[in-house]
C-alpha cells in the first residue's frame, strides 16, 4: 500500500477529514457553511433507496491549474505563505462500495473486467481540496436531483475526467468552487463557473479566478476599492471582464423605489375623465408594480437558462449586503405551481392586460452558490427568495440584478422578445380584451438553431416545416404559443415563432413561423387580410379629437399598430393561406 491514494467508506467523519486543508482541523469542517449542503447532497437517496455516495477515493497529490494560477498571482507574495504547498488533494466520490485492493487492481489492470467497468460508471464526481483556508477548489459533481420532480439543467457541460490513467465516462456538470478571499469574492466564483459554459457556447478562453479579478479593473465608485485582497466586484466591473474576453451582456437591475403606478393612475382619474383601462380601476385594487418585479427575474432567468445560457444572479440581504450566484437550471412547472401562480397574479393580470407566460411560472432555480455549495435550489417568490432544501437558515433576501453574458452580435435581447410576446398576445388573443379569457399561453427562450431544427424534424406542424431547409443564424429566439387549459396551464402547441437575435429590424425580427393546428392557421389568415390596423393608424389624430386628447402616452398603441402591420407583411411573405 502506498500513500498516493486512500479509499474510505463514505461517512460524515470521513467527509470532514477529506474536506479539510493542511491548515485546518477536522473539527472545524462541520462548522463550515458548505459542509451540511455537501453532506446532504451525497446522502440523497439513489435508485436502491440508499444514500448515493458509498466510497471516497482521495488522490493525495493533485496539480490544479486554476489554483496554481491564483498561487502565482497572489499567494506567492506572502512571506507567511512561503512554505505553502502548491499541490492539492482531489477527492473522488463513488456510489459503489469497494476497497483499496479493488481500486489498485482497477488502476493497474491491462483490461477491465465487468466489476471494474461497473465501478467506473459509479463515479459521482470530485472536489479539489486546496492547501489554504478556503479549501474547496475546482469541484465537478454529477447532478443528483433532490426529489422526483422534473429538473432541467441545460447549462451543464460534458466533462472528461481521468483518474490515474482510467477514463471516467463523460458526465454533465458545471465547475464550482468556493471563493478564495485573497483573489476574489462571490461574484468572481460565480463568473468563473458561468464562463466555463460560455467558453463552450462562444469559444471564449477560460481564465483563473485571480485573472478574472484582474480583468475587472478599477471600480467606478467614488471610494476606490483595491482589487487584491478582493472585497467584491460590482456589475460595472463584471461587464468589463465580459468585454475584455469578447462578450457582451444583458442586464436586469430594476429600481427598488416604490412607484405605485395603479395609485398614480387613479389620482389622474380623479382629475380628469380618461378612457382606457383606468375606468375599470377601483382604488382598493391598486398594485405596487415593484412587487411584481420577481416575475421579470423568473422570466429572464428561464429564457436564457433553457437554451444553455447561464446568468449571474445578484441578491440582496435585509442587512443591505449583496451576493452573487451562478444560474444553471430550473424545476419544471407542476400542477401546484400553476395554481400558486394563478392565485399570486390573478388580480394583477386582470388589471394590467397582459399575456400568461410560462417563463413567469417557473419559480425554483438551481444555482452554484459559493457560500452554500454546488446545485443549490432557490425559489423566487412574491415574498422573497427561499432556499429549498439546504439546512442553512436564510434571512429575508430578494432579487437585485441579473447579468447574462451574451454574444456581441446579438441586438434583440430578452426585453425585446418579451415585448413581442405582449404584441403577439394582443393580436392572437383578440377576445381577451372583451371577455378577459386567455386563449394562448406563451413560452419564450433563446436556443441553438440546430436544437430548434431537431425539434421541428420530430414534430408535425400544419404549416412551416419547410423552414428546416432554410438557413438560420447560429442562435435563435423561439416564442411558443400553447392552447390554454383552464386559462393558465399550457396544453397543445399552437404556434412557434422564430426570431433572429442579430436582427436589425427591432419592430419585427421574426424570420420563421410554424403553425400546429388549423384554428391557429385561420386566425393568422384573418390577421393577414385584416385592414383594421392600417385604418386605425390612419384614423389616429393626436391631440385633435375627443376622447384621445386626454391620453398622456399612447406610444405603446402606435408601436402595437406598427408591429401588427409588420407582422401582417411577414405573413404575406410567408404566404399564409
Amino acid at each position, binding site marked *: 500500500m502506498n500513500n498516493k491514494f486512500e479509499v474510505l467508506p463514505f461517512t460524515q467523519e470521513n467527509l470532514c477529514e477529506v474536506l479539510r486543508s493542511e491548515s485546518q482541523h477536522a473539527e472545524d469542517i462541520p462548522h463550515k457553511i458548505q459542509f451540511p449542503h455537501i453532506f446532504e447532497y451525497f446522502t440523497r437517496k439513489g435508485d436502491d433507496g440508499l444514500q448515493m455516495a458509498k466510497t471516497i477515493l482521495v488522490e493525495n497529490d493533485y496539480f490544479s491549474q486554476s489554483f496554481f494560477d491564483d498561487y502565482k498571482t497572489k499567494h506567492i507574495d506572502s512571506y507567511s505563505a512561503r512554505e505553502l504547498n502548491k499541490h492539492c488533494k482531489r477527492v473522488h466520490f463513488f456510489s459503489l462500495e469497494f476497497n483499496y485492493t479493488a481500486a489498485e487492481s482497477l488502476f493497474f489492470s491491462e483490461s477491465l473486467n465487468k466489476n471494474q467497468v461497473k465501478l467506473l460508471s459509479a463515479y459521482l464526481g470530485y472536489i479539489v481540496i486546496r492547501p489554504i483556508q478556503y479549501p474547496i477548489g475546482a469541484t465537478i459533481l454529477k447532478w443528483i436531483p433532490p426529489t422526483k420532480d422534473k429538473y432541467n439543467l441545460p447549462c451543464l457541460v460534458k466533462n472528461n475526467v481521468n483518474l490515474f490513467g482510467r477514463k471516467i465516462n463523460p458526465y454533465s456538470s458545471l465547475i464550482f468552487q468556493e471563493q478564495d478571499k485573497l483573489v476574489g469574492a462571490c461574484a468572481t466564483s460565480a463568473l468563473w463557473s458561468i464562463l466555463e459554459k460560455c467558453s463552450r457556447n462562444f469559444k471564449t478562453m477560460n481564465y483563473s479566478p485571480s485573472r478574472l479579478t484582474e480583468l475587472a479593473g478599477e471600480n467606478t465608485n467614488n471610494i476606490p476599492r483595491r482589487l487584491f485582497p478582493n472585497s467584491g466586484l460590482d456589475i460595472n466591473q463584471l461587464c468589463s471582464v465580459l468585454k475584455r474576453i469578447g462578450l457582451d451582456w444583458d442586464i436586469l437591475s*430594476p429600481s427598488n423605489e416604490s412607484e405605485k403606478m395603479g395609485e398614480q393612475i387613479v389620482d389622474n382619474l380623479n382629475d380628469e375623465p380618461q378612457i*382606457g383601462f383606468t375606468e375599470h380601476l377601483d382604488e382598493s385594487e391598486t398594485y405596487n408594480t415593484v412587487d411584481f418585479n420577481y416575475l421579470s427575474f423568473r422570466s429572464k432567468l428561464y429564457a436564457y437558462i433553457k437554451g444553455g445560457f447561464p446568468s449571474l444572479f445578484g441578491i440582496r440581504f435585509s442587512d443591505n449586503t449583496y451576493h452573487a450566484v451562478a444560474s444553471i437550471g430550473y424545476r419544471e412547472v407542476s400542477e401546484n405551481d400553476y395554481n400558486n401562480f394563478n392565485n399570486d397574479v390573478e388580480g394583477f393580470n386582470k388589471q394590467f392586460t397582459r399575456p400568461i407566460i410560462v417563463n413567469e411560472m417557473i419559480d425554483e432555480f438551481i444555482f452554484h452558490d459559493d457560500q452554500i455549495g454546488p446545485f443549490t435550489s432557490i425559489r423566487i417568490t412574491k415574498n422573497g427568495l427561499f432556499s429549498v432544501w439546504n439546512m442553512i437558515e436564510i434571512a429575508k433576501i430578494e432579487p437585485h440584478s441579473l447579468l447574462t453574458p451574451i454574444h456581441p452580435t446579438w441586438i434583440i435581447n430578452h426585453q425585446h422578445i418579451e415585448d413581442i410576446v*405582449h404584441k403577439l398576445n394582443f393580436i392572437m388573443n383578440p377576445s381577451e380584451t372583451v371577455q378577459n379569457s386567455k386563449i394562448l399561453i406563451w413560452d419564450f427562450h433563446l436556443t441553438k438553431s440546430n436544437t430548434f431544427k431537431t425539434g421541428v424534424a420530430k414534430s408535425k406542424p400544419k404549416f412551416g416545416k419547410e423552414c428546416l431547409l432554410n438557413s438560420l443564424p447560429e442562435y435563435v429566439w423561439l416564442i411558443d404559443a400553447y392552447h390554454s387549459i383552464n386559462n393558465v396551464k399550457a396544453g397543445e402547441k399552437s404556434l412557434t415563432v422564430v426570431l433572429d437575435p442579430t436582427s436589425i429590424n427591432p419592430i419585427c425580427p421574426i424570420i420563421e413561423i410554424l403553425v400546429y393546428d388549423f384554428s391557429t392557421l385561420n386566425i393568422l389568415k384573418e390577421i393577414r387580410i385584416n385592414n383594421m390596423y392600417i385604418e386605425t393608424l390612419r384614423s389616429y389624430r393626436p391631440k385633435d379629437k375627443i376622447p384621445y386628447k386626454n391620453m398622456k402616452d399612447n406610444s405603446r398603441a402606435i408601436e402595437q399598430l406598427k408591429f401588427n402591420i409588420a407582422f401582417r407583411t411577414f405573413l404575406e411573405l410567408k404566404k399564409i393561406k
Partner: protein
Amino acid sequence: MAKQTKSKKAMEKNANSISQDSIQAYWDSLMKLNAESKRLEQVYKINPESLSIPFNK
C-alpha cells in the same frame, strides 16, 4: 396573378367594411396596453446606482 387580384379585392372589401365604431373600439383596447407597458419600462430601466454595489458575501 388571378389569386393576387382576388386577395387584393378581399382586402379592399374588408377595408370598406370597417366602421368608425369598430376603429374606436380597437383604439380603446390598444390604450389598455399602456399600463403594462409602463410597468415593463420601469422593470427594464437600469438602476445606475445598483451597478456600482459590490457583491461581497
